[in-house]
């Protein structure tokens, strides 16, 4: 099946379901709506990240969506739909790198997520910096310790 066709199919159903169409159903993407990390691990390509998260200091305190979706409820589902669609599309076509990198948009979301829980602790440095410094720069391993 041609990529453009998949894209169309994906778009059609995807928009309806809010996330990646056929893939969505088949890959138990319904769970995309839940907060259960196992949902993300439905895709074997997510498994390494799931596993590294399980080894992270945060496994007991934060799930995928705490760090990979924005705080506000609307943005949360918009992001899920957006990622859900593109991940489903990429997964279906197999068109993605073995070692994926968060898109700038999702990097920003992950960065911002730290503040959700640590604002009190970091107010001082954030205030003086005049901008929120990158937390990931030093705490890169927080969600996923060395080696996915």
């Amino acid at each position, binding site marked *: 099946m041609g990529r453009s066709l998949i894209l169309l199919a994906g778009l059609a159903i995807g928009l309806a379901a809010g996330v990646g169409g056929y893939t969505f159903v088949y890959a138990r993407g319904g769970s995309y709506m839940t907060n259960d990390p196992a949902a993300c691990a439905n895709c074997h390509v997510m498994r390494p990240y799931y596993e590294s998260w399980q080894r992270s200091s945060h496994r007991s305190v934060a799930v995928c969506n705490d760090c990979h979706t924005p705080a506000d409820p609307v943005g949360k589902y918009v992001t899920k739909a957006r990622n859900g669609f593109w991940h489903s599309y990429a997964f279906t076509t197999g068109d993605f790198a073995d070692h994926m990198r968060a898109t700038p948009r999702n990097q920003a979301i992950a960065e911002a997520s730290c503040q959700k829980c640590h*604002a009190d602790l970091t*107010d*001082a*440095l954030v205030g003086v*910096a*005049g*901008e929120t*410094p990158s937390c990931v*720069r030093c705490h890169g*391993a927080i969600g996923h310790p060395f080696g996915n």
Partner: protein
Amino acid sequence: LVNIFERQQEGRNPFYRVVDLTDETEDPAVWGRNFPFQYDSYGRTVDQVRTRYGGSEAIPRVATEADPRSVVAQSRLEDDPRLRTMWAGYAFSVDFREERGHAFMLEDQTYTERQTVAQQPGTCMHCHASVYAPYRKLGDGDLILGFERMNRMPYAEARTHVTHPVTCLDCHDPVSMRLRVTRPGFMEGIRALKASEGVPDYDVNASATHQEMRAFVCGQCHVEYYFKGPEKRLTYPWSNGGKADEILAYYDETGFADWTHAETGAPALKAQHPEFELWSQGIHARSGVTCVDCHMPYTRAGGLKVSDHHVRSPLLNINNACQVCHKWSEDELVERVYTIQDRTYQMRNVAMDALLELIADIRAGAARGAADADLTAARQAQRRAQFLLDFIEAENSMGFHAPQEAMRVLGLSLEHTRRGQVAIK
């Protein structure tokens, strides 16, 4: 009258401002009332602890009229007498010590014997005292003008205009607490450097990112410099670029020399603490890791994360300085640093022994009346070999800030020595 510093939406900057700070507030104790954690750690820069190549050792001495210090750092000249030969005829051959914490900067400069054997200019003050307020006062509000005026004074006179070592005011805006560059030498130096990279009219305080500022505040002083012209203007020689050989090319083009070598007559150069320049060539700089990340790492203080103002060797603070980014054990991290430093030290010694051979060869050549052309070539080689060697010798991380680059520079030093010996033998 407790007024809480204006909070942005999420309630940032929960500092209680018990006093108002202005651009005239020099005394760190006053700032300390608003920021006790930072003030306390700032005060701890009086500690003296030695590492294999860094830190410093507290050497007791009998205080005298001329030099009231009862404790100094170890003498580098006694550790390695070859330095006396390298610097023959220059003040550094009389007194050169391991550097220690910020708290000592003003007294160490005031009482070094380098002051007694030579007449030093007010320019020196730029990096050893809190000069921001004094410059502005001298310049009737104009920082640069005050800088120029103090440069021209004899050291003793300039000394009467300053009171503190580097203090809060020198790195922070008193109202926003943002980092800022207050040193004319760096403002002009970084402008020249950016220009050499094709960025015109660079204004550091307007254009630098927050991340860059975490290195620039240190680059104000931890850099190679010289005094330009009769007005002794402090100048950072970066208009060709910041690498050791680019700086050497700048000095060769301008024909500048710090002094004439007493044993060979070579137009010699002295390199000084180019931490900022060497760091810039390393993998950490390339990865956005700044001086502050390692020398003032965040630390937990009560319910806050604060920057450790006890500026010191990271080897004395591995946990905060390195382990957030590197999951290796403390011992392993120290070993990694020592492995890098030991290699650098080995090559430094090879290059220094070779340089001393060249110096001896030039003396012998002059004694037996070698051809002027050969002598001149050999002296030029000595000037260059010596500057490149000194660049790594004077840099204070023993190569850690950029391990491969440090070895490249030492290799180039050895190459100049070789050519000099070929020319004169």
